[in-house]
């Protein structure tokens, strides 16, 4: 896959390297600013709330 992309890039090897770096940067930016912000609320590593379910504490007694 990557070899095929490399062969498809035009120009000298310097130009190819620059274009390849640009493609990688664009892919990273797309992930960081678009895909990850969309994905991130759907997964959670860090739970700080007791009871596991983040709702009001189950203290009905007063």
């Amino acid at each position: 896959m990557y070899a095929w992309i490399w062969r498809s890039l035009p120009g000298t090897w310097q130009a190819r390297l620059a274009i390849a770096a640009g493609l990688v940067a664009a892919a990273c930016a797309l992930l960081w600013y678009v895909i990850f912000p969309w994905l991130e609320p759907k997964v959670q590593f860090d739970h700080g709330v007791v009871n596991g379910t983040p709702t009001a504490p189950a203290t009905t007694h007063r």
Partner: protein
Amino acid sequence: MRTVIRGLGELCITAGLVLLLFVTYELWGTGRYTRQQQDQLNKELVKSWAAPRVTTEKVKLGAGLALIRIPRFGAKYHFVIIEGVELADLRKGPGHYPGSALPGALGNFVVSGHRTTYSAPFNRLGELKMGDRILIDTRDRQYVYKVTDRKIVKPTAVDVTDPVPFHPGRTATKHLITLTTCHPEYSAAQRMIVFGELSESIPRAAAGAGAKPAADRVSH
């Protein structure tokens, strides 16, 4: 066949790199969202404090409730506490358990926050020592709590949020604060709980949240 295997290998390596980037994003990138929200909430809070008092002041879910500052974490440490502990609330900052006592009130003022990710407001909770001050600013008053205890509990230990922690049903006699976060860091296996008790209630200087109020100290 060879190209297929090579393609698969390349895909796996790419997926690994993307995952690494995602972990990086979770740990440091999510803070950007929290900082934006905190700036916004801070502005709203300061504005609402400057406005005349509404007769029944009830904080909406997801809105700012109070300011928390902990001198041990540095002069710059301050977060707006949000009403609510849903996922969406805790993404914005530390959250107050709805139904638990309000700042300075009799009972238990319970606040939960992220240990990592989303600016990690409670990252350094483990560094708190007995007697350390936790400052809670509200519209009129600043409540100074002093740390009394720290415990590691199971995630199911809801009794830490009781008016009298660990004694469900008992009537509150003290003004307490309870901070909850996850433990160990980067895990959700346990919860770290920091308990504190109100030691002082002083009028908040009307100008700016950072100003140190001086006049008429009321001791508790």
